[in-house]
Structure formats: structure tokens, C-alpha cells
């Protein structure tokens, strides 16, 4: 308790003025782990939205697609195109993974930007997009890492590791480093963008409640979509990169 009263005062004062909560979480204790419950709640919500809409849309499939089915087929086509352009010929098995990444991130981001989560008050922290939390994005990025390692190893076997000394063995450290920077950049990019979007909106709202935040919110929507696309594209590109060059 070495915090000086002065700093506490200023902190408290700032906190009261801005009303912006950063780094506050609503914790659940599950099996010795402290879990960010607000992320789990919004994630479940996003998952429910996705699964529910998909189930409703493809409950009664038609040859000539009706509205919902048509929309989801369009989305699927989009994801398949994306996977195909990034991965190449053998994109088939990776469409579900890429699609899951894209849809989860996209719906998460947009739910954070469009739904009035703040109506529901939590004991601590506040509900926001699941991708607003570094844990979610790191989990997604690590999944991507695991996916591209699996893709490379299952395609080439142990000769997959030849790529580390591919141009010259001098690049070995950099190539190894790349395996760490990839998930790092993926997770931080997504996390930073979404958090920044939401923060900007929250700050603007706390300053000028009406009208002024609207353009920024649209910008946030745009960025959110772009971020989801970037994440999916990069995941697909990494997978494709680890599978290419097989003889």
C-alpha cells in the first residue's frame, strides 16, 4: 500500500470524469482459473446467434435458395473463395476452420459495435465484444498457429521443418521467430483494433453523448469487418504457406 494519496486521488478523479473502464473484468472462478466472465457471456451469445441463424436458415434447404439460405450460401461462397485464393488447390478441408474464424470474429466485432451491451450491468467490468479481450484473440491466434502446423505436418511430414532453413540456414532464427510473431501479430492486431474502436466510441460518448460518435461508430463497423477479413485471410495464408511447395 505504497500508493500515495495524491495519485489515488487523481486516479479516482480521472476515473470518475471519464467513466471509462479499462482492464476491469467480471471474474468467474472455475477450477482454479480466474475467467473473464463477460467475454464468455458475449462469446456464448455470439455462438448462439451464429448457430441459431444457421440452423434456422438451413432447416429446410431448397434447390432454389430462399432468403436466409441464399444469404448463408453467399457467405459460404465468400469464405470458400477466400480460402481458395489464399490456400490454393487443397482448400477444401480448411473452409470450416477459416469460416469459423471469420464468422466468429466478424459477428463478435459487429455485436460489440451494434448491440447495446451496456444496458446490462455487471458487478464488475462491462459486456463488450469477445474480441475486445486479449485472451480471445490470443486463443484464436494460437488456434491458427496449431492449424498451420497441423496443415504443414500432415501434408509434408517431418520434412515440413525443412522450410526453416529454406533460403539459407542463416535465416533459421528468423524463421523460428516467425512462428512466434505470427500469432502475436494476429492476436494483437485484432485485439488492439477492436479495443481501440470501442474505446474511441466510449470516450466520445462520454464527451459528447449524441451525434458526434456516430461517424466513429461507422468507422468502427468498417474496421471490425476489415479486421475479421484480415484475420481470416492471414490464417488462410499461413495455412497455405505451410502447405505449399510440396513435391
Amino acid at each position: 500500500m505504497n500508493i500515495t494519496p495524491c495519485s489515488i486521488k487523481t486516479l479516482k478523479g480521472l476515473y470518475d470524469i471519464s467513466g471509462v473502464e479499462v482492464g476491469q473484468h467480471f471474474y468467474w472462478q472455475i477450477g482454479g482459473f480466474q475467467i473473464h466472465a463477460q467475454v464468455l457471456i458475449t462469446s456464448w451469445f455470439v455462438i448462439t446467434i451464429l448457430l441459431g441463424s444457421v440452423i434456422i436458415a438451413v432447416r429446410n434447404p431448397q434447390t432454389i435458395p430462399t432468403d436466409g439460405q441464399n444469404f448463408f450460401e453467399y457467405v459460404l461462397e465468400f469464405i470458400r473463395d477466400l480460402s481458395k485464393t489464399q490456400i490454393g488447390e487443397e482448400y477444401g478441408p480448411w473452409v470450416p476452420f477459416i469460416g469459423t474464424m471469420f464468422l466468429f470474429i466478424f459477428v463478435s466485432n459487429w455485436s460489440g459495435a451494434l448491440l447495446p451491451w451496456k444496458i446490462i450491468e455487471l458487478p464488475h467490468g462491462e459486456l463488450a465484444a469477445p474480441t475486445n479481450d486479449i485472451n480471445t484473440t490470443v486463443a484464436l491466434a494460437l488456434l491458427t498457429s496449431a492449424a498451420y502446423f497441423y496443415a504443414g505436418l500432415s501434408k509434408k511430414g517431418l520434412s515440413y521443418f525443412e522450410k526453416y532453413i529454406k533460403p539459407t540456414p542463416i535465416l533459421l532464427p528468423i524463421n523460428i521467430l516467425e512462428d512466434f510473431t505470427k500469432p502475436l501479430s494476429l492476436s494483437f492486431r485484432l485485439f488492439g483494433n477492436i479495443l481501440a474502436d470501442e474505446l474511441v466510441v466510449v470516450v466520445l460518448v462520454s464527451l459528447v453523448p449524441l451525434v458526434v460518435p456516430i461517424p466513429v461508430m461507422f468507422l468502427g463497423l468498417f474496421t471490425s469487418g476489415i479486421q475479421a477479413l484480415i484475420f481470416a485471410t492471414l490464417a488462410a495464408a499461413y495455412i497455405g504457406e505451410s502447405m505449399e511447395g510440396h513435391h
Partner: protein
Amino acid sequence: MKNVTHSFVFLAHWPFAGSFGLNTDILATNLINLTVVVGVLIFFGKGVLKDLLDNRKQRILSTIRNSEELRRGTLEQLEKARIRLQKVELEADEYRMNGYSEIEREKENLINATSISLEQLEKSKNETLFYEKQRAMNQVRQRVFQQAVQGALGTLNSCLNTELHFRTIRANIGILGAIEWKR
């Protein structure tokens, strides 16, 4: 001051039990802005999405129609081909039948001709045989006659004497005379 410190310590620990609630402050929850954003999004997004989906649907429809047409064309061709096949089969049957009857007729003709020629041959054979027989009989007859004549000549030569000579002449004269007399 102590209170604040306490609250900070409290914050640092973050208790797990708490209360959920509804934040009814419209400005703090950013409801109006969100409504505007969602409204604008729906207003503009709907048209774009509708166009997009309609286009897609039209594309699917036209693709289906095209393939239906292709299928129909193919079916028609199949039907035509089947009809032609039937016709050709019929023709082939006809030809086969014709061929069979032709062959049958040819066979019959051939058999007839052969039998006729056979009959002729038989007849000529018979005739030949008959003539041969006739000739043989004639030869035999001739030979027998010759022998008989020779025998008679021998007999005549051996037992012809004057008295017999005269008697014969006389008999002949008598016969001739009787003929003359009758006349």
C-alpha cells in the same frame, strides 16, 4: 482517505459475488447513437444485400434453367436416337426376314433345279441303260444268228447233195408256180 484506499484495495481484489442490473441511462448506454447506426445500416444495407441476394438467386435460377434446357435437349436427342434405333431395328428385322425368305426360296429353287437335273440324268441313264441293253441284246442276237447261220451253212455245206438240191429246187418251183397260179 482511508476509505479511498480501502476501496482501491477492494477493487484490486474484485469480489466474485455481485449484482446484475439494468442500466437505464439512455445517454450512458449510447442507445440513441446505436439506434441511428443500426437504422442507417439497415436502411442502406438492406438494399445492397437484397440486390446481392437477388442477383445470386437470378444467377442460380438461370443456371438451373440452362441445365434444365440442356437436359431437355439431351432427352429429346435421346428420344430421337431411340426412335431411330427402333426404326433401324425394324429394318434390320425386315432385311433379315427378307434374307431368310430369299435364302429359302433360293434353296428351294436350287433343290428343284437339282432334282430336275437329277431326274433328267436318271432318265438319260435309264435310256442309256436301255439302249445299252438293247445293243447287247442285238449283239447277242446277231451273234446267235450268225452262229445259227454258220451252223446252217455248215450243215448245208456238209449235207447238200444233188438229190436234195433238186428236191429243193422243185419245191421252190412248186411254190412259185402256186403263186403264179393264184395270180
